[in-house]
């Protein structure tokens, strides 16, 4: 049985950017990219590609398409996933979608997924690590009218069904759903594999298909954002830090315990 898996991948500013280099443009309500730090594929999304590759490792006959909505620069994220081992890349690039909120993003991705049909499994990250929203995956499931298993740490395809381990607060549950389905993946799934040089070179030659809203039969003027960002700012933390002094570690420990006792914390 041949399977088609579509992985949704977004490109984001590197979330490991040190807090000291994190800046926002409050007027534009946008994050200012830290100089010298390149954007990266959103972490959970490459974990999604890893999940798809593991299914292919197990089953063999699996086609993996990487789908992204964003500007030309998002091609880097797609190429990274192709180098990981995905087969095809699609970029939805349309200036009219530049300010898309999560609702409009999901509309465009759903239209593209339908155009890529037949498909068996759609994999997204649990949340994109820019706005940390976690809305697009479940929204896609509703728009496509298919089942959805959220925040999973393992995903397999068996007997025409998807079987996934959904993370709970104190453990996990195993959930099964008929295909096609959407799953959103979490970091507990494990590290995404890192592309080898040869794969990077091969991926560089792979074509990335580019679609506009019109190619998807969408009229951007009919797609209305559901939310507005009114403000974006760096929150101020006001904590007086006392660096515990002492000539020896023991002195420091004594002084710390003294402070904790004074504050009636221990």
């Amino acid at each position, binding site marked *: 049985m041949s399977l088609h898996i579509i992985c949704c991948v977004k490109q984001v500013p590197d979330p490991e950017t040190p807090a000291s280099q994190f800046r926002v443009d409050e007027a534009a309500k946008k994050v200012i990219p830290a100089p010298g730090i390149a954007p990266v594929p959103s972490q959970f999304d490459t974990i999604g590609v890893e999940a798809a590759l593991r299914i292919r490792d197990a089953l063999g006959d699996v086609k993996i398409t990487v789908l992204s909505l964003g500007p030309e620069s998002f091609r880097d994220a797609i190429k990274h996933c192709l180098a990981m081992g995905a087969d095809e890349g699609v970029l939805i690039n349309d200036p009219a979608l530049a300010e898309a909120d999560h609702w409009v993003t999901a509309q465009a991705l759903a239209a593209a997924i339908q155009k890529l049909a037949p498909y068996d499994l759609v994999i997204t990250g649990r949340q994109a690590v*820019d706005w940390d929203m976690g809305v697009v*995956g479940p929204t896609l499931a509703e728009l496509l009218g298919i089942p959805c298993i959220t925040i999973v740490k393992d995903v397999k395809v068996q007997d025409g069904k998807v079987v996934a381990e959904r993370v709970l607060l104190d453990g996990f549950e*195993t959930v099964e759903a008929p295909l096609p389905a959407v799953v959103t993946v*979490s970091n507990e799934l494990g590290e995404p594999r890192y592309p080898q040089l040869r794969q990077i070179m091969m991926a560089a030659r792979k074509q990335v298909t580019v679609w506009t809203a019109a190619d998807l039969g969408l009229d951007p003027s009919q797609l209305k954002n559901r939310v507005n960002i*009114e403000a*974006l700012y*760096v929150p101020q933390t006001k904590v007086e830090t006392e660096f515990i002094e002492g000539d020896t570690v023991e002195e420091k420990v004594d002084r710390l315990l003294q402070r904790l006792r004074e504050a009636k*914390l221990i």
Partner: protein
Amino acid sequence: MANDILVFGELTEEGRLAPITFELLGAARRLSQPLGGRVLCAVLGAGLDGQSREAIAQGADVVLLADDPLLQEYQGDALVQVLERLVREKAPALILLGQTMVGRELGPRLAARLGTAVTMDAIDVAVQDGRIVVTRPCYGGNAHAKYSFNTSPAVVTLRAKSQEPIERDESRQGEVERVQASIDAGAVRTRVLGRVKQKAEGVRLEDARIVVAGGRGLGGPEGFQMLEELAELLGGAVGASRAACDLGWYPVSAQVGLTGKVVTPDLYIAVGISGASQHMAGISQVKNIVAINKDPEANIFKASRWAVVADWKEVVPLLIKKVREMKEAEARR
């Protein structure tokens, strides 16, 4: 009615209202004044004796109660159907859910079915000039964003511990409206095959008054044994950074942060944790943080009340020794 607030009453496995529900009810009560509507609480489950009373004591004006064996265990496909119907019938202005494993799925799905707006993981909801405005952390907690909505109702999930419950009041009056679950079993496509619980021993991390947390700086799982010893002496629980959990040094159920748990102990002792914004997202409400880190520039110090610049391997054994002596002295008195 158009100004009502609908709270999704999340339940524990035992079928009791979960603490997050009381926090949501607290937020809803405060918002019901500027919005000028009532607080509705949807309690959907099985074997719910006494839960309506409890929801009212915690702030609900109307409890929408569906008690149905089909709602025994969590099934997104079943709950989203019932919720969608209730929302269409009651037409609230605002729907509040917890940012939990349940809310993370139901919030976006419900909003998508209604074609309406949703924002996740809010830490504040306010009414400004008659409009609902939500504040939520983003970019791993490095930034905060404020959102307004173009469609009604607005669906909002609230971060655990971000809202105060009201003072529980047994004498509060409210209505209970029994609703039919009327679940279309054919539309429940997912099936739960089994559950695995990682039982934590001792104090639950979420309830602990003291949390001792370890990170990659511990260098291996052995360090966590020492933290467990310290936590036990202090009557607390052990937490971990994602780096430590990803390395398999400690169970994921102990992960604190954006994609882990939110904790609000009186005292948080961070050992070998750098203080990445995503970790801090789990302790943003903690007032007393002690950080033990050998790097004087570590970000965690910025949020710490007390900073100990040293190697944990020297600090923690001494802490254990001295806390033990202290406790023994107390016991003798």
